[in-house]
Every structure is written in C-alpha cells, then in structure tokens.
C-alpha cells in the first residue's frame, strides 16, 4: 500500500484543486474544461511521460523543450519551404528526435558522463538548430494538416478531445504498458533502483539506458508534432522552460528524482495539476499568471518532503 501513497497524494491534490476551482468559478466543472485540460496540455504531457522514464532510470534530460522547438521548425520548414508532404516530414522528424536522444544516451552511457551536462549541451544544440532552420515562426498550411486538426472525439456537451489529446492518451496507455508489463520497463526500474545490482543480475544496463534516452527523444519530437497540430506553425522559440515544467510534473506525480520509484500514471496527475492551476488562474482573470509558478513551487516542496518522509519509513529496520 505504502508504495502507492505518493500516487494517491498526487490525485488527492488534483481532486482538491479541481473541486476548489469548481466551487469558485462558474462553468469550471464541465466536460469542456476537463477535455481542454488534455488538449491544452498534450505536449507538456507527452514530454513529461518521456521524462518519467528518464527519471525512473536515474537520469535527467534537459533537452526536451529544445528538441520540441526544433521539431516544429523542422516540420514547418519542410512543408512550407520544401513542399514535403506532412506524412513524409513527420516520420523524419520523429526519427531525428529518437536518434538525437539515443546519441545523448550513448554519450552518457559509454563515457559515463553526467546526464545533466550532456543533455544541457543537447538543449543548447537543439535550440540553436531550431533557430538555424528559421529565426521566425513559419505557418503550416496544408490540407492534410487541417484534416488532422479537425479530428476529434466528442466526449460531452461542447467538449471534444482533439488530435493532440488523443495522441497524449495513446502515449499514456503505451507508456503504462511499457513500464509495467514489459522486460524493458522492469529493467528501467532495476537500473534506476540500483545500477550495480542490476548489472550483477545480468540485466542489459547499457542498452536500457541508451534506449531510455532514445525513447525520450522520440517523445520530445512527438510532442513537437503535437505542438504543430496545436499551433499550426513552426516556432523556434516555443517550449522554452518546458523541460523544467515536465520535471516538475514528474516529481509532483510522485516519481523519485533518484530513480527506481514512481508511476507513469502519477505523471498524468502532475500534468493535470499543472493544467488545473493554469485554467483556474485564467478563469479567475484577476490574479497574476505567475501565481502558477508559485503554486507549483509549493507543491514541489510538499511532494519532496512527503517522499523524504516515505523513504525514511521504507528504510526503517522494520522493513
């Protein structure tokens, strides 16, 4: 039971916040607002899911926002300037993201470099490349894109899950499966829990670590694709600071930064908490939007303290 405690705490906070906002603001407790939470936070959600795996494995990846930005400009430029079909441009962008992540993973694993620094370099590189592709935002105008953007599932009165939200939910489902029902998932937990013992157990540590970063690179690029569906344009400045929001969502979702402990589902909770606070601030309309940061900082602190408390219990001699 105890291992589910952070997860329950995350969802308790989410429910309390949502209930409070629903009591305070007219029309907050509607299917539309809930559906918007998924549509509006789809690309944050997808990067946070990728980040969950990296953090579970005991690493960190700062490059996600920059890779997302590069992906948007790359796709927009291929479509607008080079007349590519989106169906060709998107897979190429996803491949680049995956290889980029895998490359960083290789450096981290092969040369035992600190993930913080390698991915910091990756962040600067990808952000720079985004501006090399274009210094300005490029509009994406393509019939296929319009068709994609109009895809949606109606889930209630005036509430619809758009393509971005659908991709987000799909990624979420796959990620839960990957984490809990595959050898790869079990290896990630083992490597993050204790790399040495994982190695002694004969688990493929090196391959797992590289694949985790490749997976996160893929997620970042996919989040970039979702961003272009959300704002049909490629913008090199998009997603600045997104990596930190994603890390915050993961930690608030109950995943330990030291690795080995946490759930993908918790990350969903973290992302929704983020979105709920932001929506509540928009509904309020009189509070400074920077209160989002302050609320997130308080939650982060509470969750770190909670985790510290819990880990003290679990390491007590009784266990």
């Amino acid at each position: 039971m105890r291992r589910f405690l952070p997860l329950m705490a995350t969802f308790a906070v989410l429910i309390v916040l949502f209930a409070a906002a629903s009591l305070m603001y007219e029309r907050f407790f509607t299917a539309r607002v809930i559906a918007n939470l998924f549509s509006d936070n789809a690309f944050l959600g997808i990067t946070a899911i990728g980040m969950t795996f990296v953090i579970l494995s005991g690493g960190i990846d700062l490059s996600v926002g920059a890779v997302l930005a590069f992906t948007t400009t790359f796709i927009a430029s291929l479509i607008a300037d080079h007349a590519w079909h989106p169906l060709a441009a998107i897979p190429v962008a996803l491949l680049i993201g995956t290889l980029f992540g895998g490359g960083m993973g290789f450096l981290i694993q092969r040369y035992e470099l600190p993930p913080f620094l390698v991915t910091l370099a990756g962040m600067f590189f990808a952000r720079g490349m985004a501006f090399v592709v274009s210094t300005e935002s490029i509009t994406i105008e393509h019939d296929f894109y319009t068709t994609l953007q109009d895809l949606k599932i109606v889930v209630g009165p005036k509430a619809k899950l758009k393509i971005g939200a659908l991709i987000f939910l799909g990624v979420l489902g796959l990620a839960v499966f990957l984490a809990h029902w595959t050898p790869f998932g079990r290896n990630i937990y083992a490597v993050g829990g204790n790399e040495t013992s994982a190695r002694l157990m004969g688990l493929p540590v090196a391959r797992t670590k590289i694949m985790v970063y490749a997976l996160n690179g893929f997620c970042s690029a996919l989040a970039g694709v979702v961003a272009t569906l959300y704002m049909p344009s490629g913008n090199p400045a998009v997603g600045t600071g997104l990596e930190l929001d994603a890390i915050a969502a993961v930690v608030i979702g109950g995943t330990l930064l030291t690795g080995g402990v946490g759930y993908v589902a918790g990350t969903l909770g973290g992302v929704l908490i983020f979105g709920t606070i932001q929506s509540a601030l928009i509904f309020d309309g009189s509070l400074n939007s920077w209160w989002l940061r302050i609320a997130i900082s308080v939650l982060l602190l509470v969750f770190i303290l909670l985790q510290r408390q819990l880990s003290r219990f679990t390491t007590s001699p009784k266990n």
Partner: protein
Amino acid sequence: MKQKKSFAPLGVFALAALITFSGCKQETSSPSSENAEGGSTSAAAGSLTVGFAQVGAESSWRTAETESIKSEAEKRGVNLKFSDAQGKQENQIKAVNGFIAQGVDAIILAPVVETGWEQVLKEAKDAEIPVVLVDRGLNVSDDSLYTTLIASDFVAEGRMAGEWLAKKTDNKASIIELQGTPGAAPAIDRKKGFEEAIKAHEGMKIIASQSGDFRRSGGKEVTEALLKVNGDKVTAIYAHNDDMALGAIQAIEEAGKKPGSDIVVLSIDGVKGAFEAMVKGTLNCTVECSPLLGPLAFDAVEKAVAGETLPKKTIVDDKVYDQSVAADVIDSRKY
C-alpha cells in the same frame, strides 16, 4: 496506523487549501454568478464579461496598453478576465480556450506572433464569441475568424508629421529623413505617408534620406554625416521614431547648431523622452503611436456583442503633440 500518520500533514494541507480557496470564493462569486446568469444574451454594458489575452509585460508601451484596457474595463463596469501569456503563444491559446469555456461575451487578443491561430479562433467562432485584435495583426487565411483589428495606421502617422511640418515652415523646408529599419512596416509606411503630405507643397523637399535603424546611435551617426554634406541647407529633420530624433538632436548640438530653432526636428511614437525634449525645446513635434487602446477596444467589443458589423480594421486616432502642449501633458504621459 503508520499510513494514517503520514496522511495527516497532507490532510492539513488539503484542508488549508480548501479553506483559503473557499475564502476567496465569497469575494469573487457575486459578480461572476451574475454574469453567468446574464449570459451572452444580455448585451447591456455593465454585465459584460470580457477576456483579455495579453502578450506579456515586456515594454513600457505594452504595460501602458494593459493599463489602458484594465482602466477602461473598470470605467465601463466590464468584468475583465486578464491573462498575461508571459510571451508564450501556447499560454495565449490556453487563455483563449479558457475564456471560451468560461463563456465570456468577447475576447480581446494582442497576438504574440502572427501565425498559428486558426484552430483557436475557429473555436471562438463556433462559440459565437467575437475576437477583437489589438495592436498587431494576424496571418489567417479566413479573416472572418476575427471581428476587427485595432491598430495604428503608420501611413497616417507619417502624413500627420508631414502636414504639421508644412504648417510650421510655411510650406518651405529642406528635409533630412531618418528612416527606420529597412523593410519594417512602420518604416515603409511612415515614409510613404510623409511623402504624400509634402508632395502638394513645392517648397518642401527631402534632400537626403537614410536609415538610422530606429536606434538613437543610428540617428546620431546619420545626422552627423548628412549635416557635413549638406551644411546649412538643412532646415528640418524628420525621424521615423523618437529615439532616432533624440540621436539627431545630439548631432545637431555637436555641429554647433540649435535643434528646435535652427533646425526643426520632428518624429513619431510619443515616448516620454520625446516629451522631455519638447519641454527643453530641442524637439519640435512628435506624432504619438498610442498604446492606449482601451476605449477603442471596448467600443468595438460593445458593438460586436450588440451584433453590429465592424470594419476589419479600426484605426487608432493618433494625435500630434508639439512644444506648445508638451509641458501641459508630460505628467499625464503613461509610457
């Protein structure tokens, strides 16, 4: 037992949060519930709820714009929902989506970039919420996605500057023009408007025209060089923005002449520094490019909510300020 124990601090936290939030509720609930009941059908002023999605607070010009919209909302009894996007388009889109979900009567949007707005504007259109754009245009294929754009007309600003100069100099002037950044819309339009205005007057001529890049240092360097070449012929300097004019004033002083009397100096924007220079007597005139869009924005909102059709572009009525009024108005300048 232990589980209960570790829940305790969390419970306290949650309870505290709930209490704080419900405390806020009492203050804010009365106006917002009125609005919800009034709904979008009652268009009478005073019961309107309007969302304003602002770019951020990156310059004093923008802060002045925000203040103008906030104070005008208060004056008209409009319930304003303000959202600062912190310079990020995704935040602005979220804000607009939030406003739509909330069922506001109208949305005012100062778009951070030109591209990528189709989807969210379609949502607003489907919900029959008029969108009034302020200060910057959008790049959308279908212009029925927004109601109107309220922005300055740079050509008109240039024209006003030209007309003022004609009057001031009795239609006789040899002018140096300091252009803005080549290719920038304000530079092109302010040049065009000015030329239109002086074309009618035989005695007025632009003897030299170069770019000072909208910068004070650029204005100074170009003026220095052009004064050396053209000497005493120059009787007026027209700058596309105040900063370049302030640079030009320095150059004129260094050349041993009196700006404001030996050489007439005029520019566009109406920043505080320009008013200070006019009070000192070194600048003759500035045409403001006003960020105070509140009154116009809410006029448009009220008309749109009442179902009137609006022109696609509403031009801000920019004013000319010269030395005769500078001292009186300088304290009331907000940017």
